[in-house]
């Protein structure tokens, strides 16, 4: 079956449109004190994970900050509008857009630097976050903010801003991000990895979590290859297939490599032990520790004697050559009294990635056009296993977030979407996306495979608030309807549209 583009527009699930009401209270010294949030998501005529998206939005509504007094209320509303559903960011993009602008507005009222107010209130490991969850895993938001603060794009921002041309205004904006990974406390976030020593002596990895281009299959080969000492030409990859691979859950929730990677480590370690044990048995040596796996072969280190992995395989039964390992991601043990269903919908999470984003923006006063000139993303997503794939996820999500911020609009009237093609639904081209810089803050996450955390979604949450804050910095206006089109920006510049931020 295939859909044409218009059918895809009509039927595909879209990021839930949100109405967000925020009130934030701080002490005089800029300590965040209280937060009151009401979230309304438009889920359209059917529920496609509406409750789950709302729950994740609520959990992230207060951002990566310590806020002792928080009131959260959320409603997911049925309408006759287009269907809302799972979309990269999963409710977090919407609330981060609001919260990170609230923080800037508070900073402005307190006459405080936007980076400083964030550093003052950002969570550390051991803190309770804004929903009261104790952060027991790696928590690198402060390191991200500090790294951003030391970057030339931040340090030289005032000089950069003064160089705006005629009719142009420049501004910079920061956003602090966090993004939970996995399914939350009730729905088991599991993966079942399978690794095989083939009769030919190769290592076959049954990658059960879908790789639709994000590259997790390559990372899986790296993980198994690292444990089993094999380069990729001694490895084979089996992509998800209900006949051959085992259930591994969805490619979603920033959980693919974390959950599957942990399962894969278990399977690969077991297979390694079996191969070396069988080698020790064959040579009648006392310990498997005298052996090493080298590409396509096994070497007995005391004697230097080698034999092909295929020879070992020929002594093993299929049940022995195939190793399977099940992993279930850890969940938050906290049991909040947070209303029925919220926990079932995935509230709260226990593992979070963090990031600090910086946008350098130029605004045209004659047309309202916003140009993002440079973009910096500093991310704490644990150890990096594959730097190229890591950057891909960041860069791609920023570009997508840029569209969310500036041009992509699924406005509908009487339930009918105005846009049904790529002429009217305006996604960024290569000419719209600035040069992006990605700086990793590599903090080892003890529960992650080789120390990693999820990177798939967090970066999409940054561009809208960072650009909005930069726009406010440049011209003193805040747009409260998104995307921030030239038309809306010019109206705000002219004071034609009295949209007081809430």
């Amino acid at each position, binding site marked *: 079956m295939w859909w044409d583009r218009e059918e895809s527009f009509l039927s595909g699930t879209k990021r839930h449109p949100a109405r967000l009401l925020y009130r934030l209270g701080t002490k005089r010294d800029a300590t965040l004190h209280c937060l009151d949030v009401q979230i309304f998501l438009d889920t359209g005529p059917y529920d496609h994970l509406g409750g789950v998206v709302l729950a994740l939005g609520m959990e992230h509504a207060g951002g990566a900050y310590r806020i002792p007094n928080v009131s959260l209320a959320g409603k997911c509303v049925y309408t006759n509008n287009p269907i809302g559903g799972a979309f990269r960011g999963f409710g977090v993009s919407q609330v981060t857009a609001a919260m990170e602008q609230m923080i800037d507005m508070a900073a402005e009222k307190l006459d405080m630097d936007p980076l400083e107010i964030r550093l003052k209130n950002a969570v550390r490991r051991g803190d309770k976050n804004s929903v009261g969850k104790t952060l027991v895993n790696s928590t690198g938001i402060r390191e991200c903010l500090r790294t951003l603060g030391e970057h030339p794009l931040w340090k030289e921002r005032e000089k950069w801003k003064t160089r705006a041309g005629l*009719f142009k205004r420049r501004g910079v904006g920061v956003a602090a991000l966090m993004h939970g990974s996995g399914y939350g406390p009730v729905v088991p976030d599991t993966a079942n990895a399978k690794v095989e020593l083939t009769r030919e002596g190769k290592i076959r990895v049954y990658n059960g979590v879908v790789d639709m281009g994000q590259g997790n299959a390559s990372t899986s080969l790296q993980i198994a290859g690292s444990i089993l000492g094999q380069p990729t030409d001694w490895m084979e990859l089996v992509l998800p297939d209900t006949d051959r691979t085992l259930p591994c859950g969805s490619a979603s929730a920033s959980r693919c490599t974390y959950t599957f990677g942990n399962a894969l480590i278990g399977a690969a370690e077991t297979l390694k032990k079996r191969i070396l044990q069988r080698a020790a048995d064959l040579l009648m040596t006392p310990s498997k520790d005298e052996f090493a796996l080298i590409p396509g072969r096994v070497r007995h280190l005391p004697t230097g004697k080698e034999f092909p992995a295929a020879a070992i395989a020929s002594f093993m039964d299929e049940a022995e050559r195939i190793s399977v390992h099940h992993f279930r991601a850890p969940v938050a043990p906290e049991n909040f009294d947070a209303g029925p269903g919220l926990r079932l919908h995935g509230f709260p999470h226990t593992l979070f990635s963090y990031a600090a984003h910086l946008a350098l923006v130029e605004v045209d006063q004659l*047309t309202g*056009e916003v140009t993002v000139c440079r973009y910096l993303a500093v991310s704490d997503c644990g150890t990096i296993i594959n730097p190229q794939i890591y950057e891909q996820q960041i860069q791609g999500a920023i570009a997508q977030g840029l569209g969310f911020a500036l041009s992509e609009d699924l406005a509908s009237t009487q339930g009918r979407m105005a846009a049904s093609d790529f002429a009217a639904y*305006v996604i960024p*081209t290569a*000419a*719209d996306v600035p040069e992006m810089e990605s700086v990793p803050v590599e903090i080892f996450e003890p529960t992650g495979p080789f120390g990693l955390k999820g990177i798939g979604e967090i970066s999409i949450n940054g561009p809208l608030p960072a650009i909005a804050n930069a726009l406010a910095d440049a011209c003193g206006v805040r747009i409260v309807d998104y995307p921030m*089109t*030239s038309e809306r920006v010019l109206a705000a510049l002219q004071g034609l549209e009295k949209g007081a931020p809430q």
Partner: protein
Amino acid sequence: MRRVYLPTTLDEVWSIMDREPNAVVYAGGTDLLVRLHRGLITVDGLICIERLAQIQGVKEEHDEIFIGAGTTHAELLENNVIREHLSVLVQALETLASPPIRHMGTIGGNIVNASPAGDTLPPLYVLGASLEIQSREKTRTVRIDQFISGPGQVLMTDKELLTGIRIPKPKGFGIHHFEKIGRRKSQACAIASMAALMSVSPDGMVEDIRPAWGSVGPTVVTCAEAENILRGTRLRPEILEKAASVVKKTVSPIDDIRAGADYRRVVAGNLLLRLIRYHSDGT
């Protein structure tokens, strides 16, 4: 199955038009084939004129430049005569759609399509382009502003073909200016655009100015009153503001999916303010 013809000479075109009075002509197909595929129009015959060498290419003829209607946007962009004399057109072509569309679409198609957002139209208006319209019987010449009568409407019969564009070489206009506002930086349909030819004396006087606006009316909009305000005065912000306020009253934009009428009106005027950048620059 539709009948499709691929003539290589104008004589063939006239014969096909006689045989197939309802056939529709296309060159690049970048607009017509979209509408056809979406079922917005139905036709039973198509005449693709991409192989008509007679109506392709650029010729320099004394004080005039002749552009074959079947010349693609890309060919114009790479043509030295066009680059040397018609910078305002070049600037517009650079913003037109995307490279592959520019390799297919033709200037004649952009004219006959007569979209209010047609990117080449404001430059062709300020350049005073006239069009050669041929039929089997005769060739007639008509000014572009008298050819385009409304959105998607041109004064041409089914037996006629736009074959060429004649553009007098602009004399004395040191400044060629074009700006387009779209929903993104590239491959965008115009929300508003402005083309302008201007000459400014070394002491900053506007000797002559010809602006034209796209996407802010049913056809390209010109504004004699604004020109009169500017002509013969020193180029300074207040005078541009004054002219811009007249422009805002003159244009008649509509609301559509890309922008509202109010925005288009304001931006049409504001685009004129950009000309202040030439205030001390007579070249």
